[in-house]
């Protein structure tokens, strides 16, 4: 029987820890397009150090069950946990982030050596896990993590968070009259109002959409994806569009659907 390397993945849609004998690229394809029996859809997941362990997560047991099928094919997925996973993962265990389009094109992103410094102005965040509202804010990404995870000023607090910073285009400078351009966000008038409120009222964040899912078009990513907890923040920058088009053409096309 063939030997397969066992991998440990931290999925963000849904938040889950999964053991698999598929490589990250193979797992991405499988996870996004499934088989005839499974559902399909965009996927975002991290590849973790397979040596990572946590007392609340039955990783060892998951690996024991992660064995090839009778026909010799690799085990695609063994779900280890689907609840409160992100908060229990030490971010040092994260190796890479994989963005998978709904038709199974996989892009691997390495974490940046350092997080970029926050900038002034309006920001739009799509939270991915553990909850998935869309939030407009005057806070830069690092300040946003600080507010949500480390030093909350309200009763709301998350032990860890993964989110994407999305483009605001002209709305960042002119929320009321700026052109929407290619921003596909639903209920754009509400977004404009939220952004305007951030400028005129004494609030630093506004919930734009509390019912949306964590799925968003990759093409609207502004800088990249952040994941942070009380100790660490990791930033996974998305390469410039021109580089994506040149170096990762297939992924870029599917991401632009």
């Amino acid at each position, binding site marked *: 029987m063939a030997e397969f390397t066992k991998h440990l993945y931290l999925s963000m849609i849904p938040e889950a820890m999964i053991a698999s004998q598929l490589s990250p690229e193979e797992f991405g394809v499988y996870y996004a397009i499934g088989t005839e029996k499974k559902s399909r859809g965009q996927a975002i997941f991290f590849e973790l150090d397979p040596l990572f362990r946590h007392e609340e997560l039955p990783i060892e047991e998951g690996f024991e069950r992660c064995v090839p099928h009778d026909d010799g094919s690799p085990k695609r997925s063994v779900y280890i946990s689907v609840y409160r996973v992100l908060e229990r993962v030490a971010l040092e265990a994260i190796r890479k982030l994989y963005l998978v389009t709904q038709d199974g094109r996989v892009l691997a992103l390495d974490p940046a050596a350092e997080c970029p410094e926050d900038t002034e102005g309006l920001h739009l965040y799509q939270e991915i896990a553990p909850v998935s509202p869309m939030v407009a804010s005057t806070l830069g990404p690092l300040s946003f993590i600080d507010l949500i995870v480390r030093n909350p000023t309200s009763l709301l607090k998350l032990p860890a968070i993964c989110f994407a910073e999305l483009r605001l285009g002209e709305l960042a400078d002119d929320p009321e009259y700026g052109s929407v351009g290619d921003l596909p966000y639903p209920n754009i008038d509400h977004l404009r109002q939220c952004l305007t409120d951030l400028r005129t009222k004494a609030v630093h964040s506004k919930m734009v959409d509390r019912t949306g899912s964590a799925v968003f078009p990759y093409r609207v990513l502004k800088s990249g994806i952040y994941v942070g907890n009380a100790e660490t923040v990791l930033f996974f920058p998305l390469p410039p569009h021109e580089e994506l088009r040149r170096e990762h053409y297939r992924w870029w096309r599917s991401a632009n*659907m």
Partner: protein
Amino acid sequence: MNIWVVVSLVSGVISVAAAVFYYRWVFQQDAGSEQAQRVARWIEEGSQSYLKKLYVALTMLSVGMAIVLAIIFGLQVSPGYGFTIAVTFIFGAVSSSVAGYMGMSVAVKGNVRTATAAERGLVPAFKVSINSGAVMGLAMVGMALIGMSLIYLLTESPEMVLGFSFGASMLALLAKAGGGIYTKTADIAADLVGKVEVGIPEDDPRNPAVVADNVGDNVGDVAGMGADILDSYIASAVAAMLLGAALPNVSADQRMMYTVFPLILCMLGSFASLIGLQFVRVREGGKPGPALNSGTVYTTVIFAAMVAAVILLSDIDTAALWATLAGLITGVVIGFTSDFFTGDDRPPVVETAKVSGSGAAITIITGFSYGLISIVPSIIGIVIAMLIAYFVAEASPVITGVYGVGISAVGMLSITGMIVSADAYGPIVDNARGIAEMAGMSPEVVEVTDILDAAGNTAKAITKGFAISAAALTVLALFSAYASEVYQAMLELDIAAQPMVISLLDPLVIAGIFLGAATPPLFSALTMLSVTHNAFDMIEEIRRQFRERPGILAGTEEPDYVACVSLASQDALKALIFPAFLAVALPLIVGFVMGPEPLGAFLGGAIFTGILFALLMANAGGLWDNAKKYVESGYFGGKGSEAHKASVVGDTVGDPFKDTAGPSLNTLITVMSLASSLFAPVIAAFHIF
């Protein structure tokens, strides 16, 4: 023997020879990598397989129709006449088939060579694609000139050329309607499952319908559209020849001259197109669209100068020159006018894209409304051309008003060589883009083919406007030819000594108008229902492949492209039998039951609604298509936005409008008019009421 007819014949041979030259030139270009050639072979085999099935069906139909013509005219006139009409009918069908086959053959070779040339830049890629398109344009014009001139040389009878025209039109109707059903079946099914359900991009090789989609571009837009314009081209010349032969108060020599004058115009147009094609050049970094337009403008100017020279140096009345120019200029202006309603940065398209943010219903209402408005300028153009041609000719002491209208239609269509070349360029570059994607060519190559493709869409829109307007003038001339044929037949039968009068006070005439007016909507509905029915079958097939073979989407397994190609072919051919039967049977039933005047009214009703529906559908469909593209280019939310979802609905509704029903209506009304003119002597003699 008239020297002009011989010259026309020779010009036809030259045009075909030039097409063969371009054909060989295209073949000599680099066919690219093994992978690119493999993808191109799929498209080529799919196209050939469809054409083979189409031509088998057409052969049976043509032989059957020829036998019917031989029997009817054999009994009514003489066995020799019946036999000759049958032969000319088959000759017309064969000529159109040969030209269509040549165009298709080079298109499926030119596509991969264009994609390969795109690796070296825009200029070489554009040269390959326009030269490939020129094969279709020049072959079509050449075959038509050879056919018309040869038959006239041998028989000296315009009625026999009418048989040739009827044969070409029957083929055109089937090629256009069949190609239209095929292309939109594949397009809609590929998009709905591929893009919407599964989320894979356009021209992705994982889509089982992607080859059928590319085959559809060839059978619908190369063979179909080419046959459509050729049919109007021949029909307009024949109508004018018939009207020239019926000119009163002229000498025999003058009658001969005015009868062959349409052939002279076609001959000059073929030379002008050949010269105009040499001006279609683009610079690196330039835009192919203006290059295509400049070819049309140069061709128009050269043609006008040639016509003026011939008329001024011969005995032909100058009224013929003004009639020719009225049609020519109007055709070009209407062609470019349709670009206003469908161009991707024009107000109607931008407005439709903008309102799409409010939902699909508003998109449909807005696009449909602009489609309705778009009828007006074209109709005004047609009316102006018709009235100028009529009154200028009527003022002449030699030619009649209706002959002037006929000549204006020929004038409009005389530059068909250039127009069809630009039109055939569209599907060739569309295919080239598909091949570049499917063969995994570099993003830079895809970018070049994208630039070429954008110009192809504009060329297609202009050609559609041109084709519909040309068909309108053609059928108006055919209408007069029909009336003239009935009058001649009645004179010979001693039935009446007055030209046919169609009175709106006659209930049979009113009935004829209503029945005729209902025919284009019925035909449109039948062809569009065929698209939805066939697309439903293909959607099920694509879903089945994705469901049963998950490796297709994972990229580890190749889809069964042939299954979708075969499904599209057989469904398209099955679907067009009934509409094609109606096109020939309805006018004959009306004529034999109700008589010549109600049949004239029937044709009038069909022409009016046919032209209106054709303009509406072609322009509304093009507008919805470009509204979607406008949103996708980054406006009103771009891809994935609410506006995009609504504009996709509009585009899907518009697909069978602009590529199936709309363009087929030109051919429908031409076929009905030709069938009526051809059978006019028999109907004049035998009818119930």
